[in-house]
């Protein structure tokens, strides 16, 4: 029955993609950026569900479950980072890309710094980081299918990869955005529904009863630094800083370029703070910090305490153990929806980088629209194959794909991005120097961990990147008048006009 439902769900997603193919205009701008016509409601859910992935469903509750509530600071940082993106960087990036028909943020930065070499460099850095993150999504579905049906992990990875290829190849960014909205709502319903269902069934006294169990059995899970003393105050602060780097996540930066008009940037922070920060992210917090550990600690539990990689699918295991089979299937559909809604945007973003910034930008600059669309689609397949390889490999816990691989890599274009959009004095040499040094430090830190000084990889590497970016920029000659006019004067004039 479950297999039949999942097949029907896959068919529904396929129909959506076919519909998207029929309604999309066949231009590169439409395929890559949804014709720059996304309105506020779609944009918000598009961005929210592009951010909220299998990681939010599985990995985030898993960390809270093992280490207590300190890691919630990562989410507070993420919300602040997204708000900063939409308040300060998004409007200017959107305006300059719209005025100059840039199709990718890296293309815009290449024009800002007048450097094709920087374009290639940033493309490689971002691709190296986004591929493991896509792998995170398909691996999550593999784990979900394993927990529910006992299938080997590769079945889920193949299933999700097939759906992703169909959505992105047929539909492009427009249908990716719409699929995000529809599947995201399904995801929220499954996530919230399962939480309410479990609480009602297992804790008749509500969340207070769950907390009482934890206070009696394992109180360290309710406070910092947690049972393994991992979240000391300075670690909690560092985790917040990691979260703030969310403004550098390329798939979210790209979403700002699809905006219909500037009023979107006026409303997005409100939605991010209220709907995402105060409501949506409360669901995984309650799951991971209260409900899941209380169930594991209570007498006669069907799900005894687990640790390490085994905690990755604690939510799905609890749902499967305590709720009816039909509901477990529904929750797994929610996980698949979460995976698709994030991975599709990441896949679109990565393929835009390959097609627009590497193939079109460096090797075939005179390629036409159809060539660009074709290369984007071929890139989708290549990137997905790479991510499947990493997912099969499964070397570390789900959470570390994001924290140790994706975020540090995304962070390396942060100084060049923010400086390019907000600081007139930022120069090509500063951007290249900072990015090369930060990325090289990151790679060296992977090979020889003590180089990172015991800090999460993103922190020391971005500091080196930032310092070099600022110092070299100040020591080298100013950008040309043409660049200042294009990226600052014209942008401010454009944004000052009525929407």
């Amino acid at each position: 029955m479950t297999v039949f439902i999942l097949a029907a769900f896959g068919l529904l997603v396929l129909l959506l993609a076919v519909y998207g193919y029929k309604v999309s205009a066949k231009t590169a701008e439409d395929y890559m950026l949804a014709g720059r016509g996304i309105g506020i409601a779609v944009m918000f859910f598009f961005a929210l569900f592009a951010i909220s992935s299998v990681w939010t469903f599985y990995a985030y509750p898993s960390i809270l479950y093992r280490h207590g509530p300190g890691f919630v600071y990562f989410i507070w940082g993420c919300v602040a980072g997204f708000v900063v993106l939409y308040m300060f960087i998004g409007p200017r990036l959107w305006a300059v890309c719209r005025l100059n028909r840039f199709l990718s943020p890296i293309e815009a930065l290449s024009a800002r710094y007048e450097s094709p070499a920087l374009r290639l460099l940033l493309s490689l850095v971002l691709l190296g980081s986004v591929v493991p993150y896509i792998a995170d999504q398909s691996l999550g579905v593999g784990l979900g299918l394993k927990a529910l049906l006992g299938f080997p992990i590769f079945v889920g990875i193949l299933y999700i990869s097939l759906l992703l290829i169909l959505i992105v190849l047929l539909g492009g960014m427009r249908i990716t955005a719409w699929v995000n909205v529809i599947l995201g709502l399904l995801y929220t319903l499954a996530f919230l529904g399962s939480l309410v269902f479990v609480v009602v069934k297992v804790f008749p006294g509500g969340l207070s009863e769950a907390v009482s169990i934890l206070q009696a059995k394992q109180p360290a899970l309710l406070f910092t630094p947690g049972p393994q003393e991992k979240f000391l105050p300075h670690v909690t602060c560092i985790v917040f800083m990691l979260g703030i780097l969310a403004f550098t996540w390329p798939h979210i930066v790209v979403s700002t370029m699809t905006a219909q008009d500037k009023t979107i940037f006026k409303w997005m922070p409100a939605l991010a703070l209220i709907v995402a920060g105060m409501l949506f992210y409360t669901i995984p917090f309650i799951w991971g910090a209260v409900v899941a550990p209380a169930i594991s600690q209570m007498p006669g539990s069907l799900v005894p305490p687990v640790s390490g990689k085994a905690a990755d699918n604690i939510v799905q295991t609890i749902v499967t153990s305590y709720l009816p089979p039909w509901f477990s299937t529904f929750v797994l559909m929610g996980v698949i929806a979460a995976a698709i809604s994030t991975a599709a945007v990441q896949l679109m973003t990565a393929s835009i980088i390959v097609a627009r910034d590497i193939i079109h930008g460096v090797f075939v600059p005179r390629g036409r629209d159809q060539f660009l669309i074709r290369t984007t689609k071929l890139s989708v397949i290549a990137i997905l194959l790479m991510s499947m390889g990493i997912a099969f490999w499964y070397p570390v816990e789900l959470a570390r794909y994001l924290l140790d691989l994706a975020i540090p890599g995304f962070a390396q274009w942060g100084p060049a991005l923010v400086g390019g959009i907000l600081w007139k004095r930022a120069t090509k040499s500063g951007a290249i120097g900072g990015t090369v040094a930060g990325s090289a430090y990151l790679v060296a830190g992977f090979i020889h961990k003590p180089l990172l000084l015991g800090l999460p990889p993103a922190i020391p590497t971005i500091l080196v990147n930032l310092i070099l970016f600022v110092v070299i920029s100040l020591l080298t000659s100013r950008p040309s008048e043409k660049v200042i006019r294009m990226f600052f004067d014209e942008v401010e004039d454009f944004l000052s006009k009525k929407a």
Partner: protein
Amino acid sequence: MREAFSHRAGRIFLLVLFLDVAGLLAVTPLFSKPIIVMGWICLPFAAGIVFLLIWLCAYLVYFFKYWPFR
């Protein structure tokens, strides 16, 4: 951010955001105290909600009344 730096209301707005972040980081040593709010809310979560509320108020006032691009 450039536009916010260029006028007084914007600078006050940025200062509020900055102080709010500083406050959120400054209260982390208190989280080891065994305090639970309303029966189930632990301190790191409560601190984050207060943090978001302050950002929300500052943003609503600035973006709807003073933002130069509104």
